[in-house]
């Protein structure tokens, strides 16, 4: 692990605490493993927030989370003593019981820890360039995902406009899938809808989704055989330089050619000019 001016011994100068519902391989790499009872993340985070503020919490309340008061007290001690604390969190928190409330509790805990020492929280992103998609959607539309353009401007409502919701409702008559394999992870009604409508997949590999698609265009894998940019999960963009050549076009080239072909078609949008003062 990176050695630095302030952490000259690298990993030895850092403390890693893993919180999970089961002892995963990561537990071996951690200094401390806390096994929380499934579905009790929100309770654990809320109890931590209370204890940090010196509020009274009963042993029974703590026990419900699968942990003990002593263990949490020790954790709090370590957190307060840290010079720079980071809490990484992933889908185990945001996609289980409590969902966004769990994430909110964790973010609040991070903010409140700053009364004692420097603390931040950061989501662990999924495979590939999820962060890049999120970053670019934000600068172009103001929103990270779950965006509808069907009124000609971006609207956002996760739960309504998220891919899975649109597919489950059968609201789309065509699907264009790039850099993802929803056929492997989404609920059955969503997958059935993908199979029903013309689905176009751009992927270097044969995937669950490509198998049920009407068109699969094989593309060069980004970063291996196609150049591009990938955003790290701290939103720092990294240039991708291909190490190999590929007979296949890049995703970018395919999309550009599709876009050019669509531009030839009659436009369904209004001919009205864009006015800038309508609502200012």
């Amino acid at each position, binding site marked *: 692990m*990176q*050695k*630095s*001016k*302030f952490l000259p011994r690298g990993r030895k100068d850092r403390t890693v605490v893993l919180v999970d519902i089961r002892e995963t391989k990561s537990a071996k790499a951690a200094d401390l493993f806390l096994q929380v009872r499934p579905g009790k993340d929100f309770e654990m985070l809320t109890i931590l927030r209370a204890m940090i503020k010196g509020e009274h919490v009963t042993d029974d309340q703590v026990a419900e989370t699968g942990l003990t008061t002593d263990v949490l007290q020790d954790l709090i001690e370590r957190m307060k003593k840290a*010079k*720079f604390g980071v809490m990484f969190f992933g889908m185990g928190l945001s996609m289980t019981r409590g969902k966004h409330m769990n994430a909110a509790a964790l973010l609040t805990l991070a*903010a409140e820890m*700053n009364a004692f*020492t*420097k603390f*931040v929280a950061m989501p662990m992103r999924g495979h590939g360039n999820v962060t890049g998609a999120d*970053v*670019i959607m*934000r*600068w*172009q*539309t*103001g*929103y*990270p995902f779950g965006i509808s*353009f069907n*009124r*000609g*401007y*971006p*609207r*956002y409502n996760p739960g309504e406009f998220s891919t899975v919701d649109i597919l489950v409702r059968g609201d789309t008559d065509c699907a264009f899938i790039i850099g993802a394999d929803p056929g492997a992870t989404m609920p059955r009604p969503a997958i059935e809808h993908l199979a029903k409508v013309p689905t176009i997949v751009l992927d270097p590999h044969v995937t669950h989704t490509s198998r049920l698609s009407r068109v699969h265009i094989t593309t060069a894998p980004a970063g291996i055989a196609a150049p591009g*940019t990938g*955003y790290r999960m*701290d*939103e*720092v*963009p*990294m*240039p991708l330089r291909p190490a190999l050549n590929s007979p296949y076009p890049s995703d970018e080239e395919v999309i550009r050619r599709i876009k050019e072909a669509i531009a030839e078609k009659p*436009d369904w*949008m*209004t*001919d*009205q*000019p*864009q*006015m*800038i*003062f*309508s*609502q*200012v």
Partner: protein
Amino acid sequence: MLRIIGGTVYDPANGINGEVKDLYVADGRFVSKTEEGQTIDATGMVIFPGGVDVHTHVAGGSINFARAMTPEDHRRTQAFIRTKTRRSGLGGMAPTTFATGYLYAGMGWTTVNEAAVPVLSARHTHEELRDIPILDKSSLVLMANNEIILDLLEDGEDERAKHILAWHIWAAKSYGVKAVNPGGVASWKWGKDAKHLSSKIEGYDHITPGVIINKLAKMVDSLGIPHPLHLHCNNLGAPGNVETTLETMRHLEGSRAHFAHLQYHAYGGDDWGTMKSEAAQLAEYFNAHPNMTTDAGAVLFGDTVTITADGPWQHLLYKLTGRKWGNLDVENETGCGIVPYTYRPSNLVNAVQWAVGLELLLLINDPWRVFLSTDHPNGACFWRYPEIIQLLMCADFRNDCMAKLPPEIKNRITLPEINREYTLYEIATITSAGPAKALGLPHKGNLGIGKDADFVIYHHDKDIARMFGHPRYVFKGGEIVIDDGEIREAPQGREYLIKPSYDPNTDDFLKPLFEDRYCMSFENYPVEMERIEHAQIQNCDATDATN
């Protein structure tokens, strides 16, 4: 080609103050005469050089984080609907990139300077800048809390630090140097701050904020960078901080300096309860020292989102407001905090801030040295500039606004005693000619022969906010981009960069230091030139910079 006839021209760069004058344009620039092309009759209308924003935050990690944090604002704001030639987007507190271009151009601004770019997110910032249509752009790189540079200064290796600074400017494909809370942001990595020029900087024994400021300003001058050190002083926003600001100004005698958003640095009092304006004291010092320029960082009442590299200040603001707080740390370089905020006239602190911004604009007597800004989006959103112009041009309107402030405001501000009203000529200076000059962009904010044909035609209107909010035409590079509120064209703008010279061995010196500290490889760090669209490299002239 284009002929604009009969307009009343305000062109401070050429001393033209409201003369009826024809303008001719060919190949994107003003020419002495042309018989060809479209003729626009501007009789009875007012012609200004296109606006230049010396300090704004429109692209990069922090504004993009602010966008993510404020979906509730996007929902209520102006939507830009896609057309055949225009991209969709949203206005509001943190407009999306395409909308940013349309909104700036829509009120006649054609050049903007993105004022805070960490080297590490420069690649991202340039990608966003490319998605801002119409405008020409430049950006400043954050250098006052960079660990490698601070370490060199700590060891007294000033000459080496200068080469590293120049190297970083080019690596970031940047146009100049921004210093934010020098030393304070570095201390924030430890949860601490550095409020005064002699404060201890966590992790260092010898250097202080004062030392960093002094040395950076000298380096910027000696490298001949067109724009002086762009400084966000220590102790932003705090009651009594005028002392720090004055001390900083004294520190910088003999160097050029641009003081960013001076409004946030001009407070007296001991705490929030006794906070008052010290704009008069600051303006007096400023007026007597021609080595400095500043932008107002004016505040308007209403909702906005505050974003700044000043991490410790944002933590305080979060504690004060209890609203959302976003914090970003950029390894080795800087950080950033984001907090949505509402300025209310009934809030005494906000009322003082509102007055301070206007007082500075009115009490600094040379319009070539004080520029219109709101530190967008911190004090207010840039698309509200016409409201500030109205406040500057109409003392009656100002008095009406002051009447709505709480009575305790008395004795805390000097605005009621100021009768000055800006002229159109002065407005053209603080919105265009002045900032263009301070940025070292002589072909901007200037309607002279050979200069870029970026200009605005306004209807005369007694309602000043309406006049400046609704230009009749806006031209960018000689092309009509806005015609009576309609976006006609959205051409791609340029990006201004500089390449100050540095020792060719700098790469070899830096590489091991870099690889010790950063979690990316050295080769991936500099922004590739291919990523900049329409890059325009401006000259650095070391002999020219100090006069």
